[in-house]
């Protein structure tokens, strides 16, 4: 070891000035780190007794070292501390090296959402590729990262099948015949009674009545033949109009009907496709849906109360939904030939080469490489020669091109060409391909000079809802809000639609801030919340009417406002009936601070022996005593514990309700699961590593506000990584800092942040 050090010192002496710093790096590590991260001990599986060049080769390790030194997390409190100046110098050297590493942005392919939206915008059809295209892998929170886009034979096969599915539907051989079907109570079927009491569906005069919401059990389906239970099956792909006559009763508010696809008798295949709000007094609705051949429809009463599991059958007293008539018309063809057919085949007769060039350009606004055209032309020629119609020829070419890298991958040059830049922007703000106006702006050079006009136009377009929805879904994990429970035995009054509304709140806050140019500080704390009728009641705020989210000023006594006070966040970080301070704390670090935290590689989550602990706090503090965990948990735990005054569905509580499950009682074929509740006081106060005490939601929000700069930069980082399709690391600091500085004058407005991200030179680089 000494010999090595001498060698390096010697080499350092001989090398030019830039490398002079390195031996002092080694010295620093030897003096301060190697005792625990060297030959004797390798805490966290980290060794720092390596030559600097070897350390520099490990980018991730380098980032970790810089981060822990900068935050004062290492060396640990009880070890001798290096001088602050020395630490600062080491961090500066590390950062300098990190900045020289140009982040790679590997080739990206279209995500399922991008693919679906692109097809919609090109051909005007609402495709649902759920059963066709595999789900995308999510890396560091987003599915847009090229790093994570692994190709496989299965994926290629899926592209091929999807392409055929699309081609056969956008280029049909004949105009589909529109038909109409009418159904009334004679054709309606439901799930009759639940196995246990608390509700049921039944026929009543001219109506069929739904009383409960269980997507798998309670639903209304219908058959053409009143005598048969064979469900109505959609005969052909296309757009269908549904006219439903239905009304709620025993309800003072708006209710919600769900339209599901799937076999109502064997409900495993159910998937929700649409929810229709039924304002108070509504007598029904008309809607249009794109359906596939073989699809089956069923209606559910989504805003019904979840029936309890009592064994005693009780008469239903709550709200009910009465269905009286249903009319289905379709497939609708508003114009023939369809817009898609005209787009793909603008002329009745096109030569193979002309056709290939046209479709290639239509799909990606980029021409095919000259040498690749011929193979596609061959496909067209072959189809034509074997007597295929123009439509059949175009179908073959379309399938081939939709399966090819030309369409699947997003081509990006090191310095983005104009069309590529318009693609990056439109897949950022529309999650889809650019339109003509954006393309023209790109081609004229206006986009690279000053993108603000296009960004404004795009944000005003309804297509920006896709960005708002997709970004907040992944950033805030809104789709996971309802992954657990709520256990109806513990949370008796939480209705399904309230939970559904919780999942929408984060998106609506983002939308409101974006539309009104509000400061991103509102993510940390705000004097208003976005609520609809259900959420306003749940938060005990002044009443709001209807399902649409509106800003409501928070009364003084309420602690709501900001992302960490949202019920959706509080619920998604909890299990069926217990809160999880660790999930809550690490969620804040990951999603607000944009920190990368993972359990260290050498730590088994050491079979935590939590017998004999009564509260979550005791259980967790026990594991926090393990040295290996404490580095991250000294930050995670205080933040999580401060939120203990909020229960697993996000309601304020003053004590724990400890839930214990009693042994299952069996009675014939029925099993009863009983619970025992005990009350335990809450102790939420804890100190953050910087010494600041947090003890409840308001003090936590104050602590987060004190960290405003770090959090806003964290959120900017999230936006950049979504826009660029790669992880934002320490190497991006100057980029993030520049965005942060440039919007300081505009009160850190979210809208300004998006403008600044697009205007930054890095947006035009791969």
């Amino acid at each position, binding site marked *: 070891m000494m010999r090595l050090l001498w060698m390096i010192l010697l080499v350092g002496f001989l090398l030019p000035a830039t490398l002079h710093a390195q031996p002092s790096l080694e010295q620093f590590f030897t003096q301060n780190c190697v005792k625990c991260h060297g030959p004797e001990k390798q805490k966290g599986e980290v060794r720092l007794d390596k030559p600097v060049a070897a350390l520099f080769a490990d980018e991730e390790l380098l980032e970790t070292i810089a981060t822990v030194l900068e935050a004062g997390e290492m060396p640990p409190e009880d070890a001798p501390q290096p001088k602050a100046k020395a630490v600062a110098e080491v961090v500066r050297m590390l950062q300098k090296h990190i900045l020289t590493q140009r982040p790679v942005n590997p080739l990206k392919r279209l995500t399922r959402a991008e693919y679906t939206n692109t097809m919609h915008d090109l051909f005007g059809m609402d495709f649902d590729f759920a059963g066709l295209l595999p789900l995308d892998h999510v890396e560091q929170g987003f599915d847009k990262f090229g790093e994570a886009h692994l190709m*496989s034979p299965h994926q290629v096969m899926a592209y091929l099948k999807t392409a055929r599915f699309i081609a056969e539907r956008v280029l049909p051989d004949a105009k589909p015949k529109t038909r109409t079907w009418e159904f009334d109570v004679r054709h309606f079927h439901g799930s009759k009674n639940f196995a246990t009491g608390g509700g049921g569906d039944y026929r009543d005069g001219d109506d069929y009545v739904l009383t409960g919401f269980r997507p798998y059990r309670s639903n209304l389906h219908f058959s053409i033949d009143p005598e048969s239970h064979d469900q109505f099956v959609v005969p052909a792909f296309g757009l269908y109009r549904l006219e439903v006559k239905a009304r709620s009763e025993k309800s003072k508010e708006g209710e919600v009907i769900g339209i599901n696809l799937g076999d109502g008798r064997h409900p495993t295949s159910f998937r929700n496709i649409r929810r229709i709000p039924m304002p108070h007094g509504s007598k029904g609705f008309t809607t249009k849906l794109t359906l596939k051949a073989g699809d089956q429809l069923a209606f559910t009463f989504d805003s019904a109360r979840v029936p309890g599991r009592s064994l005693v059958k009780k008469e239903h007293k709550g709200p009910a939904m009465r269905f009286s008539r249903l009319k289905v018309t379709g497939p609708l063809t508003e114009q023939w030939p369809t817009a898609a057919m005209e787009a793909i085949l603008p002329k009745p007769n096109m030569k193979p080469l002309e056709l290939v060039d046209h479709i290639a350009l239509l799909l990606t606004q980029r021409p095919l490489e000259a040498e690749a055209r011929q193979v596609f032309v061959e496909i067209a020629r072959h189809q034509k020669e074997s007597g295929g119609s123009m439509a059949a020829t175009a179908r073959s070419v379309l399938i081939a091109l939709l399966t090819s890298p030309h369409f699947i991958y997003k081509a990006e040059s090191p310095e983005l060409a104009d069309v590529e830049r318009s693609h990056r922007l439109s897949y950022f703000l529309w999650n889809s391909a650019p339109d003509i106006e954006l393309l023209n702006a790109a081609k004229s050079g206006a986009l690279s000079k000053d993108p603000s006009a296009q960004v404004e136009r795009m944000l005003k377009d309804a297509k920006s809802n896709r960005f708002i929805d997709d970004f907040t879904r992944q950033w805030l994990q809104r789709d996971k809000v309802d992954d657990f429970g709520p256990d109806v035995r513990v949370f008796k009054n939480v209705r399904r639609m309230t939970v559904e509304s919780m999942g929408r709140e984060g998106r609506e806050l983002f939308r409101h801030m974006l539309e009104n140019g509000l400061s991103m500080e509102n993510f940390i704390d705000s004097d208003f919340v976005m609520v609809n009728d259900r959420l306003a009641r749940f938060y005990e705020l002044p009443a709001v009417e209807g399902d649409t989210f509106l800003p409501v000023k928070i009364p003084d006594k309420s602690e709501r406002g900001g992302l960490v006070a949202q019920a959706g966040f509080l619920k998604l970080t909890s299990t069926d009936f217990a809160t999880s301070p660790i999930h809550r704390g690490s969620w804040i670090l990951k999603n607000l601070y944009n920190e990368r935290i993972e359990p260290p590689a050498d730590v088994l989550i050491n079979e935590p022996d939590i017998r004999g602990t009564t509260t979550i706090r005791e259980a967790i503090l026990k594991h926090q005593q393990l040295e290996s965990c404490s580095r991250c948990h000294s930050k995670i735990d205080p933040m999580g514990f401060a939120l203990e005054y909020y229960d697993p569905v996000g309601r304020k509580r003053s004590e724990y309700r400890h839930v214990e499950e009693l042994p299952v009682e069996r009675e014939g074929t029925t099993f009863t699961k009983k619970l025992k509740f005990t009350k335990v006081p809450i102790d939420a106060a804890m100190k953050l590593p910087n010494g600041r005490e947090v003890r409840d939601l308001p003090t936590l929000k104050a602590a987060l506000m004190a960290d405003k700069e770090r959090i806003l930069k964290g959120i900017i980082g999230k936006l950049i990584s979504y826009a660029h399709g790669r992880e934002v690391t320490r190497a991006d600091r100057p980029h993030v800092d520049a965005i942060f500085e440039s919007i300081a004058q505009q009160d850190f407005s979210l809208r300004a942040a998006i403008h600044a991200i697009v205007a930054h030179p890095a947006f035009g680089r791969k």
Partner: protein
Amino acid sequence: MVDCNQVVRGGIIKRRTFFKGAGVTLLLPCMESLGQVSEADSPRRLLTIVNHLSFYQPDLIPQADGTFGKTPPLLDELSDHFNYLKIFSGLDNPAVQNGFGHSPCVGILSGYFNKLHRKNRLSIDQAVADLIGDSTRFKSLVFQAGENLNFSQISWDKHGLPVKQIDSPSKIFNLLFQVNESEKTQQQVLAEDRSILDAVLAQAKSMEKRLNATDRAKMEEYLTSVREVEQTVKRRAYWADRVKPQVNYELEDFDRKSVDDYVGTLLDLAVLALETDSTRAVTVQIPFWEGFKERDLSGNYHDLSHHGQKPEKIEKLLRLEHRILKRINTTLNSMKQRTVGNSSLFDQTTTLLTASMGSANSHNFDDLPALVFDSRMKTAGHWQKKDVPMSNLYLGLLQLFGAELDRFGESTGAFEVLS
């Protein structure tokens, strides 16, 4: 050709009575079709079963090394087959890192996991399928329950790319036994598929020239995938005109994913796929995650697996694990009852049962158990290991299947599985 099908025994047998009967009633197809193993033949097969959430090992692994003496309660569920069972304990996957939640589970069959790169290495089931899968309709079939999550992929092809894991019993059933409406169109579609694959391959190559090194590697993945799909399409074209096997097996509808419903159905389908010689290598990943529940147990499987050493949680967890092993036992028994060619399905099949973690309570990826059932087993019993690569077992298995290899993944030697 369809006419020569004969209904051996009419009527539909409910699934619950399926295994009680004296074996399956096949609608036997005729020459040149599936499900036709010549009477003199006895092909080798592999059934791989992986339990994602592992087993409670104190109740599975015998205390003593060597031939079975006193056996723990979980293992007792499999006592019908003790003469053919070798159980290995304390195995390790040195190239699978700890940490990162469930993600390293992707490496159970390949012995490799790298969190930075999603590509993996060849898994044992696919390595064997490459050896024995040429003459059947499917080279291999991989079943799993539940949606494909980041950590549920366990089967990897020779390029380290994920193999499709089918998650729906009805999809599996249709794939195996449903006849395509029109074989002629089918052939036309497959012919068109081939020319399309040629075209996209050419385009990918011309696009590749303009890419940097990282992106070229990405495009290589695409090219490799297309070439593999070409093979699959060829295979499909070959089998498209041949009669599919038919079975009197009715899929039961269930809205609750329990051991009997989900695991049972997947194992039934695995046996049917092997019995009809649709494939010779089947991999089944046992259900996991939140959706897996039993009606007389509160809590879900994943939650129970994090038992925190609480006795009441362990007790519930064990009830689930007992049920799973009981169901595997039933499957092995039914394989003994079915004759294909000149021997029973059990005689032809090597069954590997293993787990993605040592313990789901602590999320460790070492201390792995592996159970091998083989009718040719010479010495049955428990082989206690410590920090020996799982790949040594995999290499031993590969050699059993005739591979002339002296290395697989991280192997440091080969187990003599049978002796």
